[in-house]
């Protein structure tokens, strides 16, 4: 079932040397999970950035770290 979902989710990524795959098993489930939640994460990031911009405009906050 999960393999079938992956086959639907798979897109055409950039050409990447596979050497680093030999180093760390990122976990196919973890990679898929990130793809599945990508939209949510993007939305959260955009909302956070917009809030930050608004706060900066209103209160002149500066980014830390």
């Amino acid at each position: 079932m999960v393999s079938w979902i992956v086959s639907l989710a798979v897109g055409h990524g950039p050409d990447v040397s596979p050497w680093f795959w030999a180093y760390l098993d990122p976990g196919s489930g973890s990679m898929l999970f990130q793809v599945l939640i990508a939209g949510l994460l993007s939305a959260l990031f955009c909302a956070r950035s917009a809030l930050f911009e608004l706060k900066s405009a209103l209160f002149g906050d500066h980014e830390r770290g």
Partner: protein
Amino acid sequence: MTRHSLSAVSFRDPGGFVYEDQGCILRQVNFLAREHYDQLMKSGLYRELTERRLLIAHDEVDALPRVSATAYRVIRPEPVSLISYPFEWSFSQYKDAALLTLAVERHALRRGMSLKDCSAYNVQFHEGQPILIDTLSLEQYHEGWPWVAYRQFCQHFLAPLALMSLTDIQLGQLCRTNLDGIPLDLATRLLPWRSRVQFGLSLHLHLHGLVQHSDAQTRESGSPGRFSQSAMLGLIASLESTVKGLSWKPGRSTWVAYSKESTYLPDQTDQKSRFIAEFLELVRPASVWDLGANTGNFSRLASDRGISTVAFDFDPACVEVNYREVKKRQETKLLPLLVDLLNPSPACGWVNRERTSIFQRGRPEMVLALALIHHLAITGSLPLENIAEFFSDLAPWLVIEFVAPDDSQVQRLIAQRRGVHHPYDQTQFETCFNRYFSIQEIRPILPGGRILYLMRRRDDEPSSDG
């Protein structure tokens, strides 16, 4: 035939490895990692990270590479005084190490790079702060790819922190048996139900854990799907807010209260401090290990003198309180660590050399063993002979406090155990320690009770026939 014995701690990364040459720790950068290393150095990321003390600084050196055929560069990282492991950190140390890792990733993404792994062992405490020591962890960022180190971050950082925060602080010790972090299915079984209603934990541990053991296959050298840079930044921001949301209060630990409710009156504590300071001035050691340091009050007599000091204690609350003080005072010479002397950090991993025991990682020039011996001898049932041998193996100088059998703290321990297994009195103490040390100074602290000794290991005494 030439044989190359690669360091047992650094054999996984095809981009390079760490090795030791004439007492100096070096890192070989292989040709395979050339593009990544060059981008790190030329993009301004290296300068940015090292200036912010997020990444260990290094020099490129002309030293002979360990494996010439694959070598692109040899670098010499700034030395770290003592390598520590995640299961030796307090909660806040662990949390700061996690946030450091995410900060590095955030800075790296801005410069077109990313962390290719997130091992907690890549973070060390250096001059009072966590710092990334694995320069080769940074690789070129591939737009559109998910984060290859996401699972490792969750296993190495998020799961232990969540367990320590929400279940039991002692579960940080699970990292000792799970060198690649705590498996998410195990973590989710151990976490309380309320962790499921916390958005970040629900997403990165519970839901993530559900797909961990899927049989999903990615195409060979192909992407599992599009993952935009804004999604990547969202992932890092979400992990950061989840980690920041975790907390732990030391509470009313018996051992934190111990220093405040000790046998000593304030002027006797001052007297003890003066004697220890006197011994430190006399010996001027380069490094000190304070064993059973509690919250580090006496460790600071050494670290405040610029001496590199490690404060060991077996109580997570004491180490936490000590580390918070280090941060508050911005101390650079004191490292609090969680180590139980009766069960110290062992050697583990591949051939028991991948992660070495605490005593293989360093030796101090002086040991402080203050109000400790009765715990080892009575609670630990260790013969005084064995304790003396242990200390003599550890350091050439020893400051040790003997606690007499009629001391109230000793009486309390004896009452709990209905007697003492091995002989425990001042004569036996001096007889045993005299076999390994020569007693240089003796200072009574409490009348008829506690005595402070300065001892020097017999092997290290200057020869009389000179």
